[in-house]
């Protein structure tokens, strides 16, 4: 009577001693990670820092960085009702997303609280890939009741690299990729490199020029070697980077990470610890003039109320890191929020952060100060730093949008 569920993974038993799963790029990653400073990203063995954090960061900002993107959760969505399913899932209208295009989406539960965000790839007509930060198979299947759509988890069936930085275009072209010059931001290119099929999307998480490369796991090492061939000839500075460098770049670019910058609805236990798209400053992703989507009724109700809180971008004066800092409204002397993610921005020479801030009666606090605790030679001190709200990303270089990109 035991039937294997349709989504059972028939791979052999995991070795219980191997806590972190190697990605298809693992053997090459090891060569580039003298620090052996690993961490878990969705259960994969992922470098935190490969060699020198500062160099990795500047590879993103001034030359070219390569990062293993395989651990990102990926789902293949197809079938007659695929588009209907997706439009019911996400808050923005994806009805006009053409084949060969990518878009950024968030999705909510019935209460209009965000479950996760990600990028939606319209691979080919009627066939989609949804990349998510967290494990979403349960929610996707649950959302598909009554619809003719197939949903397959394909995280381990697709190997991916993120190639980001001003010279990424030049590097890929030198590596033999043809046709990148016409690829616009959020576009998809299906091509071949050497002997394998390669999909390239002009997407990224750094706020700079960059691409994401997608292949079958069997072609993973060939792809890696093709990318590093020009570098080995001394033509390009290419660096493998870990998640710490990415973290700095993504905060500068103002990208949020579910689970870090806000608690995802699915894992929220306490009332009001989850967040709506409005509270995350993602109003622009919510479209009420489209077919029904999960959370729409709740969000319509929320829209009618004053804004209670918002995830904002703050530049923090001084040089003390506002880690886990409380924020105060200087005008009323009230505590209004906390810092979520923060980083020193080497390119801006400033502290930048994403912070959850309470709006009293829907009003933006006029003056925000952060209470920062820091230590010098094991002595702890407290200081105050004025914060400046930024509507735009802290860093967004125009070169990221140019087509064809500049060939450095």
């Amino acid at each position: 009577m035991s039937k294997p569920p349709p989504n059972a993974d028939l791979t052999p038993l995991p070795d219980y001693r191997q806590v972190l799963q190697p990605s298809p790029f693992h053997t090459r990653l090891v060569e580039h990670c003298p620090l052996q400073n690993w961490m878990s990203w969705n259960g994969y063995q992922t470098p935190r820092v490969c060699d020198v954090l500062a160099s990795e960061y500047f590879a993103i900002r001034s030359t070219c960085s390569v990062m293993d993107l395989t651990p990102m959760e990926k789902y293949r969505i197809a079938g007659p009702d695929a588009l209907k399913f997706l439009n019911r899932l996400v808050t923005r209208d994806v009805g006009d997303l053409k084949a060969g295009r990518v878009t950024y989406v968030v999705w909510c539960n019935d209460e209009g609280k965000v479950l996760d965000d990600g990028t939606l790839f319209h691979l080919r007509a009627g066939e989609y890939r949804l990349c998510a930060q967290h494990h979403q198979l349960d929610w996707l299947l649950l959302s598909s009741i009554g619809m003719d759509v197939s949903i397959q988890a394909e995280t381990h069936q697709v190997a991916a690299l993120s190639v980001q930085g001003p010279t990424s275009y030049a590097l890929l072209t030198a590596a033999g990729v043809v046709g990148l010059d016409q690829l616009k931001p959020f576009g998809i290119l299906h091509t071949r490199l050497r002997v394998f099929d390669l999909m390239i999307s002009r997407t990224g998480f750094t706020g700079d020029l960059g691409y994401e490369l997608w292949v079958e796991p069997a072609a993973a090492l060939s792809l890696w070697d093709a990318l590093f061939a020009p570098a080995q000839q001394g033509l390009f500075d290419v660096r493998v980077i870990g998640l710490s460098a990415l973290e700095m770049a993504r905060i500068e670019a103002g990208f949020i990470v579910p689970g870090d910058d806000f608690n995802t609805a699915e894992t929220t236990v306490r009332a009001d610890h989850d967040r709506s798209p409005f509270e995350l400053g993602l109003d622009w992703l919510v479209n009420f003039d489209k077919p029904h989507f999960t959370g729409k009724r709740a969000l319509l109700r929320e829209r009618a109320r004053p804004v209670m809180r918002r995830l904002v971008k703050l530049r923090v004066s001084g040089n003390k890191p506002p880690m886990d800092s409380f924020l105060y409204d200087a005008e009323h002397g009230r505590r209004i929020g906390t810092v979520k993610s923060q980083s020193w921005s080497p390119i801006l020479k400033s502290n930048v952060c994403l912070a959850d801030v309470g709006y009293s009666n829907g009003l933006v606090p006029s003056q925000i100060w952060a209470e920062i605790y820091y230590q010098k030679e094991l002595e702890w001190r407290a200081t105050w730093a004025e914060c400046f709200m930024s509507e735009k990303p802290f860093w967004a270089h125009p070169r990221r949008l140019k087509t064809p990109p500049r060939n450095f």
Partner: protein
Amino acid sequence: MTKTGFVGASKSVLVVGGGHNGLVCASYLARAGYRVDILEARSAMGGGAASSDFAEGYRVSGLAHILHSLSPQVRSDLQLDAAGLETGDSIDTIALDKAGQHITLGIDTLAGGDLSADDIEAYGRFKREFIGYAKALEPLMMNKPPRLKDMDRRDKLTLAKLGWQLRFGLGKDSMREFLRIGGINIYDVLNEVFDSPLLKGAIALDAVMGQHMGPRTPNTVLTYLHRLWGETHSRPSLPSGGMGSIAKALERAAANAGVSMRTAAKVQRILVVDGAAVGVELESGEQLHADIVISNADAKTTFLKLVDSSEFDAMFVHRVNSIRANGDVAKVHLALDGLPKIVGLSVEQLSQRLIIAPNMRYVEHAFNHSKYAEFSENPLLEITIPSIADSSLAPPGHHVMSISASFAPYALKLGWETQRDAFMQRVIAVIEQYAPGFGAQIIAREILTPVDIETQYHLSGGHWHHGEMAIDQLFMLRPVYGAAQYDTPIEGLYLCGAAAHPGGGLTGLPGRNAAQRVMRATEWRP
């Protein structure tokens, strides 16, 4: 899209499904000045209460075969008596005993058998106590279930009345007792009170019939209370002309109220524009528009079939999809060449409601099978011979027997296609034990399994009550939260069937309460 209603005119209403609750709801609204159309898929109104021929010259009620629980409020509001409602004489329940020591169970009296004086005394006390609990629930049954947050004035009033009824209606001791046993099983309660196995079996049958529950299943005190609550208002009876006459009376009342009715008009889908119901599309492709659409169908049919599930939030659909609504009762109709000869039972007694549930262990064992998707080897039976009261149902001298038999699970492991006869054989074999020679009297027979009920009555899972009457599917959780106050996430779409509070049975209350909800929500007065 334009709606047919315009300012100053009465609101137009489409009711999907002409079962008794649909008729009741429509009648209330029409009497209040709404323009109401009922669309019924079958060839006659009345749904499960309608009568039909199962063999030439033999006629029975399709699903429900005993009238009980009809709300007196509905009866008088809709002037059903004027519309020709004849409930017939009330009947008692006779629990059959193989040795002929049958017990007759009245409202609070017991007779027959070899009952002890203790049991007879205890029965009166027990029934009075339980009827008291059932009455205490009255405020809850006669109103929309209160929400647990953002209550409106009516919700608060309902809760206040309920609290008052529990504390002062029942008194301190009874209230404590009610709160103690309200959530548990009938098995433990009956063992505390009675000795006679037959008596306990008979009461247990009332608690589990129509549900996927055995006497030991917690919740069965509540299902029993639900049944008793109905009986406090109207005693069980076999109406002359069969249950079909009830359907006819309701239909006449609806017509009197100005409701227009269409049969053979199967609704294919409910039209939704911008999150609001605007009408329906029939199987024929014809589209009808209205200000308000009310579904008498069960929750799964309404939310997963009639309306595109993508019109709802994902978790809501998941909840609807998880509703436990698989039926466990089969209906067996037998044409007999004469009255059966049940040992120790007079012809007079044959016209009563006869049940076979000799003890609680028997009932529990019958239920055990259904847990594993098998039908009961020794099923529970509720038997009526309606042709005794109404000779028109069968040729002269002949009779029809209408049997509800449990447990006959919807999702039978071996599939009903091949098992229908096998189960009917079991039913007949059980009766044979009480009426030797019974099998030879059968001229024609028919069985309606839950799968047949699903197909013929457009009722997902073929469940009597449109969904298990378990606490997690009752009151403000019926059919699911988010649609438990008769309104639904779709603006202008309402529920009025047994899927809604207070659930199944011929009370007519889901229809009545839904109509009141519609009137309040649309804030329109004629």
